């Protein structure tokens, strides 16, 4: 992929494809999705951004067959989730925004095992997978905890562990960091980074700094795909950001407001270094 022109990957097998998806919730005039078409190749990491009400969560529900489109169609690894929702759910795992909605068992380890149990996984294999999923999300040692005593952030990690345990090929994550503290966020982003290439990921978020390294970003607004771009192009396009209610990550925003042209920067330390360098230049002048 060429990150300077914003060309998207166009080879490799399709993992997700949507064609002219349209959907309206009963009793509403404005469609939640209209004419949504896009493709995601296997192994791609795609960000999905846009304002609340833009259609992001509706799209997530459609990809695992919780909602069926009014018209148009989608395919996840060849399966139409509207026609075969149970088949589709073997291939695509969705992490919903509010983790409370995903927890089903009174104890942590049972909750992670739930999806595997439903698939009839052998007990020994289940144990191994549960343990490794909990380790991946930093909840080792929580096996016997009651889920209702977990914090919001811990519940979010637990819901993710439940998802990872069934090893779906496509992951759709709806605001996966919304309840996490900064270290938790960094940890989760590391987990997601580790999935790159092996899994196909659609990552829905309002925090653009989480998508610095995405292969590309899909901007959904008013139920339509407004743009499909690589991160650097989106970050330097003030109009595209403004029209879709997106704000730059704080470090990039500060750099811009200081008149520094630093599209690739992603940490406060890097920005501080750049400011020092700039001050040095000016002193010499």
């Amino acid at each position: 992929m060429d990150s300077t022109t914003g060309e998207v990957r166009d080879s490799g097998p399709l993992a997700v494809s949507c064609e002219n998806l349209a959907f309206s919730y009963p009793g509403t005039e404005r469609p939640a999705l209209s004419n949504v078409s896009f493709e995601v190749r296997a192994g791609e990491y795609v960000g999905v951004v846009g304002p609340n009400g833009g259609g992001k969560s509706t799209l997530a529900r459609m990809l695992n067959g919780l909602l069926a489109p009014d018209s148009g169609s989608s395919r996840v690894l060849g399966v139409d989730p509207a026609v075969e929702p149970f088949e589709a759910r073997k291939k695509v795992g969705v992490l919903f925004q509010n983790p409370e909605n995903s927890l089903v068992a009174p104890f942590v380890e049972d909750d992670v095992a739930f999806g595997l149990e439903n698939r009839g996984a052998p007990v020994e294999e289940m144990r191994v997978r549960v343990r490794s999923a909990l380790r991946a999300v930093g909840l080792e040692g929580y096996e016997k905890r009651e889920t209702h005593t977990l914090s919001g952030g811990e519940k979010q990690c637990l819901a993710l562990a439940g998802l990872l345990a069934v090893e779906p090929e496509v992951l759709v994550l709806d605001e996966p960091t919304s309840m996490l503290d900064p270290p938790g966020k960094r940890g989760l982003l590391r987990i997601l980074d580790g999935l790159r290439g092996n899994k196909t990921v659609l990552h829905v978020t309002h925090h653009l700094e989480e998508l610095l390294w995405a292969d590309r970003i899909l901007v959904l607004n008013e139920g339509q795909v407004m743009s499909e771009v690589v991160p650097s192009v989106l970050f330097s396009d003030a109009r595209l950001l403004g029209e879709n209610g997106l704000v730059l990550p704080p470090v990039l925003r500060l750099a811009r407001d200081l008149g520094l042209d630093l599209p690739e920067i992603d940490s406060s330390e890097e920005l501080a270094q750049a400011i020092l360098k700039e001050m040095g230049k000016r002193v010499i002048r």
Partner: protein
Amino acid sequence: MRLELEEISYVYSRGTPFEIAALRGVSLAVEAGEVLGVCGGTGSGKSTLAQHTNLLLSPTSGRVLVDGVDAASLEKIRLRQRVGLVFQFPEQALFAPTVEEDVAFAPRQLGLDEEEVRTRVEEALVALGASRLARRSPHNLSGGEKRRVAVAGVLAMNPEVLVLDEPTAGLDPATRETLLDLIRSLRGAGISVVLISHDLDEVAEVADRVCILEQGEVKAVGTPAEVFYGHPEYAPTMVRVVSSLRENYPEIVQPVRYVETVNVLKKLLEG
């Protein structure tokens, strides 16, 4: 109103093998008309603390004081009117057929006359920028709209202290800004706000004081500059940038909010 937590401890599943001490002797005051930011890692006790402010949870030990009076001696409904609590993902509790009915629910429980209820519903929806949603079903709104309506429902009680638990989780920048503006205007009106959030950048923008919880204990409390510059592991983005610069230029002042930081750094760059 001055709300005070006095040596609060709380243990979940007490007396079972699953005991978890969530709060361990927390003492903290919310002064009248201030915005108190409460930060801390996941599982540090923030939400447990929130649920003590109106005695939704009764402390295992310790007391909650409202203007010096033990909150346990107050009538529950009155306490919960005075201390309004907005849960994490509060939109889960929306239930009425229309938005205005939903927001009207709590004020009606207070026995207010219908005209007063109407006025409060209107005002609360205006404050959240949600007036145009009044006759919609709360179930067919977007996530951001639902959040606005849920907060309006608590605001309509006219609380003296508003406690918000992760109010901006999952919100887009515009909706987040509406909520932060609401917090600023409540402070202007003399209403105290407790803002519980793991988003340090947003706490930095609106808090008058900041408290950091760690493993159920108060690790630090003070002005945003004191707390954030004193605890680098909890520093918001602006403080991190300035702290890095201060390693070379210790004379730089300690701005916390975005606009202040931009001004300080611009001057620095101008030399």
